[in-house]
């Protein structure tokens, strides 16, 4: 599996990220770190505990990271969730959109793991 195939598989923008970070090596190093990043876990935990300010922060961080790594699909869903959580007011859409974020996150994670394993 190549880095490009990996990005294509989870809805990332390979061209954009390599243009910005200049080389594949760097991209691979950072997506490896993405697996250890705790913002998604923090988001899930905060929502379970109904801690909306904390959920906002976690979603915001996740969105920022996805932006830097050009995880386009996950960036879109986490961005939407961040905006829903802003102001810490509960709405019925929050759990729905969280499910999308979770799906996008797991897809990215799975593909990155596959890529790293294949290298």
């Amino acid at each position: 599996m190549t880095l490009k195939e990996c990005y294509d598989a989870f809805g990332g923008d390979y061209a954009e990220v390599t243009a910005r970070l200049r080389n594949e090596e760097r991209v691979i190093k950072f997506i490896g770190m993405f697996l250890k990043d705790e913002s998604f876990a923090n988001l899930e935990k905060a929502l379970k505990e109904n801690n909306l300010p904390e959920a906002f922060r976690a979603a915001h961080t996740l969105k920022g990271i996805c932006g830097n790594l050009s995880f386009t699909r996950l960036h879109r869903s986490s961005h939407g969730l961040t905006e829903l959580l802003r102001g810490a007011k509960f709405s019925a859409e929050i759990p729905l959109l969280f499910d999308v974020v979770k799906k996008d996150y797991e897809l990215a994670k799975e593909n990155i793991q596959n890529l790293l394993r294949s290298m």
Partner: protein
Amino acid sequence: MTTVNVSNKQKILIVDDSELNRAILKDILNDQFLIEEAENGKEALLLLDKSCKDADLILLDIVMPHMDGFAFMRRLRRKRRQNSVPVIMISAENMPSAVVQAFDLGVSDFISRPFDPEIVRRRVLNTIMLYAKQKQLLRMVLEQVYEKEQQSGLMVSMLSHIVEFRNGESGPHILHIQKITDLFLKYLPQITDKYPLSREESALIGLASALHDIGKIAIPGDILNKPGRLTDEEYKTMKTHTVAGAQILKQLDKIHQQAKLTQVSYQICRWHHERWDGKGYPDGLKGDDIPLSAQIVALADVYDALTSQRVYKPAFSHEKAVQMITEGQCGAFNPLLLECLVQMEAVLKKELQHSSVRKTGRRERNLIAAHILNKMNVESQRSEK
């Protein structure tokens, strides 16, 4: 984590709650800079007191737990002089209101996420260079101010010594006059708010006090240095040194006449023998018609004459001198100045013991620099609006 800054690399503090975000920034900047990291505003504030005291730049996220970027900026502003370390905010929070708020809180630049590392590197470099330049300019201003003060002090000192030399007067007289004058200017505001003086005006009066007797250059030497008592006629001539000094200054170039130093010197030369009761010379001015500068120098002159030794008299003690002055044996003075003189006892005794040259202190210079900086800030804020 403490790093000793042994290299000449500048230090950047990265404040972001995400390790991944910090790693990306660190990756860009690691070669050129020393990097320190903090996970939130609180941690960053702690580091600024310790290993990051000398940070050259802060890269700051907005949304963070414990203390976010905005709260950090507010704390930083309160804590330090605002200009001491530049901050670049980096955030995925790119709504205009957030960006404007960041600038309002004093950040130097705002970078939106996702960012291009090369552009971040360039903007970081620019900001650091700009601040280094500002610091350098500040240092240059300080040196210039110091130099200028030294130079004009030196010129005035030379000039007054020429006069003293001809008078055959005792050496430290002019130095004492300056010191006593400076002390009056410093302590008078503690007694009364009747004479509001800016720092600049006070400094000029202190400087100009050394010139109070330049008019004596116009007095014939045989009168000036006559060992015995002056005749009435001679005394009349002697008294003209006040007007003579003022006339010398009046004959300066127009441009020089407009200088504040010239104007203050004029007041002092002409009116330092006036009396509070109007019985002095040359104009018989009364009370506060006599400029404060001349009032102070007149009193300083008398006090120093009394407390210094002369061929015809011993040096009187401070107490004796103050007694003679307040009893009206040596002229009539502004009661507020007399009160000030009494209260300055300890400091007068101490200061006049060491006859060191009058200098612009480090503190004074820093005040001047801060004043200039403030002006610059006010103007740049004005131009922003």
